[in-house]
């Protein structure tokens, strides 16, 4: 077994090209997808931080959210911004790169180097576009499983994720219970509700209504930036709380003393959303947005296990830490409680806490000493 060999020979981190920032690997696959199709080869862009222990026991997989990427704690190559979760991942942070070997991979279907609709279809040499197979959260997890095989990690000390990253963490625990000692699920859910699907559908329709979308075949032309920007604007509202928006913007006007009686961005909140939309299209592929939102909408962990969520975790030895935020109305506390209920019914070791924050769903990405304390304490007790 290749895996056993890798585990028995401690990799020399400095010379092993599998480890470090900005890695890409082409795995031959094939990866069998929930939708029935197979994908081969499978490209995965990822980063690792820290040193893999000789017995490979200290690996922590960080899973990113819908529009996230593998640059969890390193500068984003296109925007130049710091990693998206430097509050959580780094030396001395809860996911401590001086203790843990941290892996973060761009999800299947995304656009930062992993196989997705912008990748070349080996059959034609041209971008897949909408010929890319529809994928699920579990397909993303299976692809990550292939990556761990490649890295010589048989078993994760922990899988950690917020939002869609939390869905992957749950899916990891359900799909590969023997490969996950602990799972941290933050501001997430075990299924997309009708409201979640509805908001995503607004975004997808905005993309597809843009004449530049052209059925997805825009890679050698102007991309559907206007449609994608509107999709991002609508989604961004769901990431914030009403109180947070009021506190930040209220009804304040944007660089003017009076309403214009026109349709400029009179209000600061309009200007802010337009900026969010426009800056998003510079870094994200519209078709990837369609595929990943679809994967999230298809996510229903109970459905994958005969309709009973508890059965997804039956007999599990994985320890769980579930965290929600009181102002998150995208994946409200009730969804996390549903997960905890199922974990209790399955007899799993589960912790759950609802933290207080004014920032809505986005709170998991922002400064939160309580979140850091909970995740730090939990990971210290398991890894």
């Amino acid at each position, binding site marked *: 077994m290749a895996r056993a060999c890798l585990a028995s020979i401690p990799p020399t981190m400095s010379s092993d090209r599998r480890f470090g920032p900005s890695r890409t690997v082409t795995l031959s696959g094939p990866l069998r997808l929930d939708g029935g199709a197979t994908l081969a080869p499978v490209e995965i862009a990822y980063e690792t931080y820290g040193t893999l222990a000789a017995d490979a026991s200290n690996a922590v997989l960080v899973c990113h959210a819908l529009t996230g990427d593998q640059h969890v704690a390193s500068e984003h190559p296109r925007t130049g911004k710091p990693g998206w979760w430097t509050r959580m991942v780094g030396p001395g942070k809860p996911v401590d790169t001086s203790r843990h070997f941290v892996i973060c991979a761009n999800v299947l279907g995304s656009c930062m180097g992993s196989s997705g609709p912008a990748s070349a279809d080996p059959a034609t040499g041209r971008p897949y576009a909408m010929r890319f197979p529809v994928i699920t959260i579990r397909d993303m997890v299976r692809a990550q499983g292939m990556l761990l095989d490649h890295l010589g990690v048989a078993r994760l000390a922990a899988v950690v994720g917020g939002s869609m990253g939390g869905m992957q963490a749950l899916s990891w625990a359900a799909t590969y219970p023997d490969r996950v000692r602990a799972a941290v699920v933050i501001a997430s859910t075990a299924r997309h509700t009708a409201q979640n699907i509805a908001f995503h559908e607004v975004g997808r329709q905005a993309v597809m209504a843009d004449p530049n979308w052209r059925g997805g075949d825009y890679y050698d032309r102007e991309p559907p930036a206007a449609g994608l920007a509107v999709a991002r604007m609508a989604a961004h509202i769901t990431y914030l709380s009403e109180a947070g928006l009021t506190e930040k913007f209220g009804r304040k006007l944007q660089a003017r003393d009076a309403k214009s009686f026109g349709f400029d961005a009179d209000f600061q909140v309009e200007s802010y959303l337009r900026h969010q939309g426009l800056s998003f299209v510079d870094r994200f592929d519209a078709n990837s947005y369609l595929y990943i939102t679809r994967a999230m909408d298809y996510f229903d962990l109970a459905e994958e296990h005969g309709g009973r969520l508890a059965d997804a975790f039956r007999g599990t030895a994985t*320890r769980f830490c579930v965290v929600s935020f009181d102002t998150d109305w995208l994946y409200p506390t009730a969804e996390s*409680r549903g997960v905890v209920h199922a974990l*209790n019914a399955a007899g799993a070791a*589960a912790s759950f806490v609802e933290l207080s924050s004014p920032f809505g769903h986005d709170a998991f990405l922002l400064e939160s000493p309580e979140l850091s304390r909970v995740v730090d*304490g939990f990971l210290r*007790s*398991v890894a």
Partner: protein
Amino acid sequence: MTLRPDLRVIADHIEPGARVLDVGCGEGTLMAALRDGKGVDARGLEIDPLNVAAAVARGLSVVQGDADVDLADYPDGGFDYAILSQTLQTTRAPDRVLDELLRIGRRAFVSFPNFAHWRVRASLLWGGRMPVTRLLPERWYDTPNIHHLTVDDFRAHLDDRGVTAERAWFLARGRRTRPAAANLLAEHAVFLLRL
């Protein structure tokens, strides 16, 4: 680690390796003592998020929730012991919480402050005011204790419900006191119950 006297009694009477649910576990002091001292598989339920965060940070499995509502989430007989220490008198429906404890645990430890202790009686009789004592330090309007009970109330309730008290311990000033006059002399009572 020094445990509160009623917790000490409970900790001393749980066998190693047992499965335990501590309802109202606070920061998990008892759970940690059971885990570290006896290898007990302890889970907790706690209403205050800061206490939950503190317990999780100790590596304990604690779920934020309300004993009045969230015990319904736990399966029948999932634990050897369900523990409710100093929490019964704060619940909205203590009778239903007791039923839930005995459904979830094969046995239940329940501890509570005895409202018929002679100091409490004296305070009410001679002072004519709701008692503020060492064990009941809050005033009438800010006390979390909304269902005061006495040792005799509790015994009568067990009789009504057909619940067996396998053992009982009575404490005053941190020491064991005689069961005979417990309703007058005990500040705290600890009961080990089963259906």
